[in-house]
Every structure is written in C-alpha cells, then in structure tokens.
C-alpha cells in the first residue's frame, strides 16, 4: 500500500480550537525580570493564519497504515524537553524567496538544501537557515505545506497543513522533532508523521517528498527554482550551526555521540550513517545511502513484498518503490532498467513510496523491525 498521497487524498479534516497558553517561567523564577518577561511571552499573542485570521483548524489527516512499534503512551512518555519551550525555536511563517540566479550570498553550491517540487513549483530550503527554525509554513504549487527539518536526526519531511500552521513544540522523542499544530495543539512526531498527544492522537499527517540534496544539484535540475532567503523575520546567526557543519561534515553530524537516549539502538552502522528510510503497511526499510551510490539500485523485500530503491546521481538522492509484481529492476552502469526498458530514477513504473533521509540511529529507534537493504 502506498503512503504517497496526492493533495486530493486529504479527508478527515478535524476541527478544533484552543492554543496552549503556558507560562512556565516560574521554573526559573529567581530572575524576577526574566520571569516578568516570560509571562509576556509571545505565545499570548493571537496566532493568525495565512489570511490573518485566527487558526482554528487542525492540519488534514489521512488514513494510513504504517508500522506502529510504540504505543502513543510510550511515545508521549519518552518525549522530553530539549531546552527551548514552545515556539522557542520559531517557525518561519512568512518565508521570502530569491530567484535561482540571485541566491543568498552565503549559500554555496555544495551546501545542503531541502528541495520540494509540487504541481510544477520548485523551491529550495537551505539547511543553514532551517537549522534555526526547523519548520517553514509555506505555500508551494498552490498547496499550503510545512517543510520540516530536525537537525538531531537529520530528517527533512513535508506535510500538508491545510488552513493550519505547524510550530516547534520544544519537545523531542527519540531525538526527533515534535511539532504542534496551531489549530488543535496536537503534538506530531515528525518521522512518524503521527499525532502522539492531543485531540488527534494516533492520526496521520499527509506527507509529500522532500529531497535532501545540494544547492548546486537542485539548481541544475530545477533552474527556475526559488530559494529561501535569510529574511525570515528573525535575527539569527545564519552561517553558524550550533551542532556542526555539513560542508564538510563535522561535529554532531559526524561523531558517534547522541544527545538523548534513542528508543532502541543497533550497532550495525555508525549511528549517524545516512540511510534512505521508507515505511508503509508492509513495514519499514532502510537503505544505506553509501550502498545506493555504489550500486545504482538496491532491491530487497519488506515482509513478502519486493521493494526497489533507485539512485538519482544528479541529486544524490534515492527513490523507494514498492514492487509487488517483482518486476526486474537493474542498473546497467549508466541507466535504470525495468523489464528491459530504461527509466529515470524518479520515474520507474512502480508504486512510489515516500523516502526519508535519516541518521541510522533515529530510523532504527523509531522502526526497530526495519529491513535493511544493501
């Protein structure tokens, strides 16, 4: 069963109201001025949507059958505060973009960006900007979406948000971002795409593919792309990354240390090794990106169902396909061949499943039953 749903597949819009108003600064109440200021926190301000009206609806949810290796209670119990409070990491709610030929001066061709293409509209979101915000509430191809990024798990995922917006809850589970929606105040796990606390517990968000690639590669593929600028409405140390660097890879992104205990651990790979993960009703799979680069295509099965993951060299990314009829998928050194016909990596005549680049420890932590291909 595919989990890649089109925008038209967005039923079950849940309506609810109420935005949490927490003023927890009493916990650090010895600093009187700070405490006073804390009670004047911006979370008291009315939250408005794209059209300026108050947000009262939750994001669209969909019926999905995904592996659930933990109960909602277990996930809720395992969640913890990373330090910043709700919206302490501010989402970008009014993103500004530049043309591909006039990108932010700090953005190098080898810097990672998160690419989105929806309805013919292409946008790139630089990692060095999102590391300070984690969520961009945007509109791409006339679809209201949220592009999300968790630095600690190296995951970037896109969600349809309807009339709602997502914000950063400040809490983590398995080191991974827990978002909240500003309509129903439900907490959503990013990797699981699932409500873990609040009115929409156990509901699933509707996702779309986000591609982790580099600016140079994305621009080459999508010359008309727009790119997110540093005009986010927030003053941040753009260019500085509190965790390390990706170009070249250093610090937290490269070493073996984890900031928080994972839900489950496995030592087959370096914990920060990048895998292309996918999940569906069949189960979960992970393909080490290094193996994918080497072989061009990696095949395996999830349960009894064959899967193929195809490598796109131009974007350095992988596309995961469900292959229930066990068609022949090969890479002949220059092209991908399915049943004797050549195809592009992103256009195999199979059922595409959303793939997520993730650090191995994070993917395994959420999906300990994951099948490793390659």
């Amino acid at each position, binding site marked *: 069963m595919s989990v890649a749903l089109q925008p038209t597949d967005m039923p079950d819009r849940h309506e609810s109201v109420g935005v949490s108003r927490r003023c927890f600064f009493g916990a650090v109440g010895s*600093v009187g001025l700070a405490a006073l200021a*804390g009670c004047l926190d911006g979370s008291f301000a009315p939250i408005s949507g794209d059209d300026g009206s108050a947000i009262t609806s939750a994001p669209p949810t969909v019926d999905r059958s995904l592996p659930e290796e933990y109960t909602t209670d277990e996930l809720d119990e395992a969640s913890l505060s990373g330090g910043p409070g709700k919206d302490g990491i501010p989402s970008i709610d009014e993103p500004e973009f530049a043309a591909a030929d006039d990108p932010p001066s700090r953005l190098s061709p080898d810097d990672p960006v998160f690419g989105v293409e929806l309805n013919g509209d292409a946008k790139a979101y630089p990692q060095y900007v999102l590391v300070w915000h984690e969520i961009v509430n945007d509109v791409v191809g006339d679809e209201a979406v949220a592009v999300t990024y968790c630095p600690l798990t190296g995951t970037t995922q896109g969600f349809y948000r309807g009339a709602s917006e997502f914000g950063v809850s400040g809490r983590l589970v398995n080191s991974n971002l827990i978002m909240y929606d500003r309509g129903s105040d439900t907490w959503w796990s990013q990797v699981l795409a699932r409500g873990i606390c609040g009115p929409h517990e156990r509901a699933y968000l509707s996702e779309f593919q986000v591609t982790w690639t580099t600016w140079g590669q994305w621009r080459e593929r999508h010359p008309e792309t727009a790119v997110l600028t540093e005009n986010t409405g927030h003053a941040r140390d753009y260019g500085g990354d509190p965790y390390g660097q990706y170009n070249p890879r250093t610090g937290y992104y490269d070493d073996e240390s984890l900031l928080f205990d994972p839900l489950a651990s496995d030592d087959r790979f370096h914990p920060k090794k990048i895998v292309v993960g996918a999940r569906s009703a069949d189960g979960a799979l992970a393909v080490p990106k290094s193996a994918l680069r080497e072989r061009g295509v990696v095949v395996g099965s999830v349960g009894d169902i064959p899967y193929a993951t195809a490598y796109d060299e131009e974007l350095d990314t992988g596309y995961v396909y469900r292959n229930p009829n066990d068609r022949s998928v090969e890479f002949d050194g220059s092209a991908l061949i399915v049943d004797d016909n050549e195809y592009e990596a992103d256009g195999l005549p199979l059922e595409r499943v959303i793939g997520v680049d993730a650090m191995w420890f994070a993917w395994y932590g959420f999906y300990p039953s994951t099948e490793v291909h390659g």
Partner: protein
Amino acid sequence: MSTWTQFDPAPRRRIDETIAATALVVRRRDSLAVVIFVGIGYLAAFLWAIGDLAMRPSAAPSLIIVDDPLVRMFQRTGPASFEAVALLDTGVVRLLVSPIDVTIGLAIAGLVGLNLGLTYLAVVQPTACGIGAGSGLLASVPALLSGTVCCGPVILIALGIQASGLLLTLFAWLLPLGVVVLFASLAYVAGRVDVANASS
C-alpha cells in the same frame, strides 16, 4: 526567646556587612576597576555562551532590526533566554541584540564583578584572612552553562554528553541557581572584608 529570634540578628548583620562592603567596592577606584573589568569580560563570555555573540570576521558590517521589536524582545527562546530584536555585524563579531538577555547578563556580570571586587579587597587588605578568588569565580560558572540552542544545552552538544531528563531539568535551573550562589558568595566574601580598615 525563641530559636528564630536567637538566630535573627546574624543574617541581618550579614546583610548589613554585605551592603557596606559592596558600597566600599564601588567607592574605591581600584576595586571598582576590578568590578568593571571583570563585569565586561563576564558579560561577553555570557553572551557568547548563550549564542548571542560570535566571531564572524567574514560578515560585512550591517545592522538588521526585526519588526515589532518591543513585542518580540519578550518572546522566550529558552528557559531564560529571549528573542533578539537586532542583528549587528561589526566585521569582526556578530551580536544578536536581545535586550532581556543583555539585562540578565548585565545583572549576573555585575554580581560576578562585585564578587571579584570584594575578593580583591579582601586579598589586598593587610589583615586578609586567607581568602582566595575561588568562591566568586566558582559561583560565576553555572550561569555560563545555562545556554540552550535549538534542541539542547550548548555545553552538552559541544562535549557530546548524553542528556537525561534529570540533567535537562538541572539545566533549566542553572541560571537562577547561579544567581543564588553569586549572592551567597558575595555575602561570604563580604564577611571577610574589614570595611573600616579598607576604607582608609
């Protein structure tokens, strides 16, 4: 007489001593110089530790101010850190101007400066009773470690230390704990300064 009233005069005396010693520190030029020097240094270290100050020699000089700074300055970004309302690049350092962070930093830097100023007086007194700079310096550490960025405490990310829930709770209390310890240290050192002798 109750136990409470028996112990009551001591804290009062200690508070009086602390106020008198603190006043002396700011009256004497040499100790005031210590306060200012240490205070400025600590403020810079504090802002650096919480991520508001960074070396960015490659950034061109510029000043960016966010919309609605008076509202934004009160929005929290961590247990005891607040939104920056401006970004100042000097060509050498980058300063994220968060008025509340600077206020908190100034208050703590002032306390650290007074601690070290008092310690200086105690050390230079002919009748100094063996006090070192240790208590003031030690007391200044917790607040420096209190900074959190994005998903966790800076110091844990930098050292690659795994955080437990208990440790994270401790980090939320570091700043107020630091303030309390600084006050305690101030009172302790003040008790070792002979104000009458040092005034002369």
